[in-house]
């Protein structure tokens, strides 16, 4: 019974999307592979040798770009994983020789060792409330530790002189060139498919708004650790090829300086474009090999100057320049991609009379300042409870305590009978709690449709290979999209939406989680009269028709009066009144709180 929303311009365009564009990665791959197969026949030995190395480095650049350009994790640590892979290979082959089964073991070890290290580094770098800066700090320490480990490894690691003379794969230099080319093409293709897929949106979502990911029930920490470990494995594989192709490994291969060079190449090529970092790395490394013999210092000076200038003036790198030039050409605009919408049968839980949310004796203080004191509230399915009170009454703090069990508070909060103490936001979402923030929290670089798809990801998953042609959403979400006109701008990036549309999008994302309880922090702030009315209608529908409970922090008391089934008044951290709309509106106490200081 899937109901298709009447096709709009964008949805129709999605159907007519040219087949060529969808096959672009494959076409480019085949062409690149063919060219690289032929290349060693026409290039001189020097060029073949240098380019083999450059292409291996380009594989690392792809991993740095996925981490930094897409997922927003600035890392200097890929050099360490590369070094571990290269040393694992060299050490095993030195000890055991290059028999085929030992070669296979070397591949396994070159991938497994960095993956394990990556898991450890990921665990260290990413935790609830960790910062992007901290992850970068750790990524600086890892190569230093690995390098010092190599220095202190004595005979086994060759210390400062590295390892040389171990058995390698029985290939000529053309063979190694093709092996490196194969690895580069394969890794780039895989990365390209990933970033174009629905799962690739996830990386961007992590970069844009990690908190929102958590409040969509996704575990950002696990994703970041997984990504770190997986890309550590890829870097290790590149290390295996490097050890074989060069026949020598040295501490510099794992060092912090090499780690920063990778970042420089990616920045110059254009972070977040994959192809920019690949071409940038190959071009710079190849140029360096040719120029640094004659003008070693001048070359480094030029590179450093270009890097500083690019970071300041052209954060998108040379790829950005190319894109601008390309964009200036007169040509047909390819319509942006938007999936067809489809109604998903509702999974809404049965309505019960048991309390959905119980708060008992909740108290919170910052140092000596008490923000909340002895709050008792019970909320049942289908209620629309407004939380009002003057500035500093503790409303937003209360919302934070309800949605994040790691906030230090005293007292007890339970959702559906389950205590939330110590639970991270994503686990509270799993209990059926959705939260909408005061400042619309959406994924600015993603399209409206992608934002909604991520909101469904904890239930429906995301394809790592392709973009789904349809997007199934609960009927209530489709209604919100239709009422707010968002269904007509599905392909539009969220950052281009108006303030009101962003607020509506965030609400739609929260409803798409099919929560039992929705927490809303000032959903109407800055909205027009018409937009407020729409939001009010939506909220009434959610509570009356679906039995969802809503807790609303709101300053606009007219709005509160219209939609609430109950009003809770907070004042200076205490719950001073909990009653029906009439009781609260008629209350002398409330009038005093709002018109005067509140003490008289």
């Amino acid at each position, binding site marked *: 019974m899937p109901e298709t929303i009447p096709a709009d311009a964008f949805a129709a365009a999605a159907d007519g999307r040219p087949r060529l564009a969808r096959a672009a990665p494959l076409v480019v791959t085949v062409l690149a592979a063919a060219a690289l197969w032929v290349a060693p026949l026409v290039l001189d030995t020097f060029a073949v040798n240098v380019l083999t190395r450059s292409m291996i480095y380009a594989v690392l650049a792809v991993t740095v770009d996925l981490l930094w350009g897409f997922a927003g994790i600035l890392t200097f640590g890929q050099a360490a994983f590369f070094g571990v892979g290269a040393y694992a290979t060299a050490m095993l082959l030195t000890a055991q020789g290059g028999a085929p089964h030992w070669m296979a073991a070397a591949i396994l070890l070159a991938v497994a060792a960095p993956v394990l290290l990556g898991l450890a580094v990921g665990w260290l770098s990413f935790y609830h409330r960790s910062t992007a800066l901290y992850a970068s700090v750790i990524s600086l320490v890892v190569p230093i530790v690995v390098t*010092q480990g190599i220095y202190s490894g004595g005979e086994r690691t060759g210390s400062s002189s590295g390892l040389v003379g171990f058995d390698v794969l029985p290939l000529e230099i053309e063979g190694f060139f093709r092996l490196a080319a194969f690895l580069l093409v394969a890794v780039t293709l895989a990365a390209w498919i990933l970033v174009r897929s629905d799962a690739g949106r996830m990386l961007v979502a992590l970069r844009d708004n990690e908190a929102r990911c958590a409040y969509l029930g996704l575990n950002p920490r696990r994703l970041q650790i997984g990504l770190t470990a997986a890309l550590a494995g890829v870097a290790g594989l590149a290390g295996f090829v490097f050890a074989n192709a060069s026949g020598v490994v040295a501490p510099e291969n794992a060092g912090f300086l090499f780690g920063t060079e990778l*970042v420089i190449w990616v920045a110059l090529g254009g972070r977040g474009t994959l192809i920019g970092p690949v071409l940038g790395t190959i071009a710079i490394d190849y140029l360096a090999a040719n120029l640094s013999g004659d003008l070693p*210092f001048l070359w480094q*000076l030029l590179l450093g100057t270009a890097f*500083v200038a690019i*970071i*300041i003036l052209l954060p998108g790198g040379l790829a950005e320049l190319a894109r601008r030039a390309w964009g200036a050409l007169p040509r047909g605009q390819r319509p942006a991609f938007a999936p067809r919408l489809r109604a998903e049968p509702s999974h809404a839980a049965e309505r019960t009379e048991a309390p959905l949310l119980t708060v008992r004796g909740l108290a919170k203080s910052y140092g000596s300042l008490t923000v909340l004191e002895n709050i008792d509230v019970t909320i049942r399915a289908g209620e629309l409870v407004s939380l009002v009170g003057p500035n500093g009454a503790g409303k937003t703090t209360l919302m934070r305590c309800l949605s994040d069990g790691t906030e230090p508070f005293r007292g007890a909060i339970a959702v559906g009978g389950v205590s939330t103490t110590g639970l991270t936001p994503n686990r509270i979402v799993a209990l059926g709690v959705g939260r909408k923030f005061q400042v619309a929290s959406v994924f600015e670089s993603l399209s409206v449709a992608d934002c909604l798809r991520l909101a469904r990801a904890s239930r429906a998953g995301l394809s790592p290979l392709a973009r789904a042609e349809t997007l199934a959403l609960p009927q209530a979400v489709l209604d919100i999209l239709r009422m707010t006109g968002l269904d007509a701008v599905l392909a539009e990036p969220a950052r281009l939406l108006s303030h009101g549309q962003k607020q509506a999008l965030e609400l739609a994302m929260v409803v798409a989680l099919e929560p039992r309880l929705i927490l809303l922090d000032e959903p109407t702030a800055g909205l027009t009269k018409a937009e407020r009315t729409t939001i009010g209608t939506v909220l009434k529908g959610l509570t009356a028709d679906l039995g969802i409970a809503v807790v609303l922090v709101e300053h606009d008391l007219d709005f509160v009066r219209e939609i609430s089934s109950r009003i809770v008044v907070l004042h200076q951290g205490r719950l001073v009144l909990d009653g029906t709309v009439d009781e609260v509106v008629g209350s002398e106490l409330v009038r005093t709180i709002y018109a005067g200081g509140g003490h008289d």
Partner: protein
Amino acid sequence: MIGAKPFAPTRIGTMLLILDILTTAAILFVVAIGLLAVFGVLKIINFAHGAWLTVGAYCAVVTAKLGLNPWAALPLAFAVGAALGGLAELFIIRPLYRRPLDAILATWGLGIVVGQLITLAFGRDVQLTPNLVSGTVDVFGTGYSAYRLVALLAALVVGAAFALVIERTRLGLSARAVIMNETLARSLGLDTARVRLVVFMIGAGLAALAGVLLTPLTSVDPTMGVGWLIGAFMLVMVADTSFLALAAACLVFGAAQVLVSTFVSPVLGGIAVAVLAALVLRISPKGFSRA
């Protein structure tokens, strides 16, 4: 990093070990203090810090070539560092205030540029500088490097001067106001852009000063700053914005470095600061500043 001879665990050995810890901590403190000032006020990580150290060390080289008193390198380095820092703040840091991760990269790139300019001017070979103070001093019946004691004194002087500026001057008050609440500072009429500029200049000047003080302890070459950068950076991360916390961190991690170097291995001692600081941050993200 800083060499430490293995000692037999005798009483004199223990005293010398303590002296080593104090002098190591002093040197770490001198190296990191400029970075701390910049991180506190500008809220960016200045990866060109290593380059300022190098610039300072080459000021010592220039002073020697000009035949001046070696101590003249100290004011010269501070002035040169501050001037270069001022230019860097205006043209590189200022456009990147809202992009702190990019500021790390741009300052790193600046470090490369400075390093290569020094290489073009002086070559990449190790430079010899005259000793500021040579010889040994008799401590508990054993000869102890006189210069390391001078470095300890220098750290105390720099620390005291820094504390005085921060606590007693108008500039220090403005800097603290910007660290604590930049919006409020602006709304009271403070020219926060100028506070940032001046603090960045002082930070770069202090780093160059530290570069001069390092010359007797380490070889002077165009990349010498990089080795010191990471340690200083980790110490500042742990100290957050408090210079007392920085002093504490230098003592604790300096002690760890000396002890690991002495009793386990000098190589592991070299990474003790970075690894311990990373672990401290993982456990307590605010580091030492809460204590």
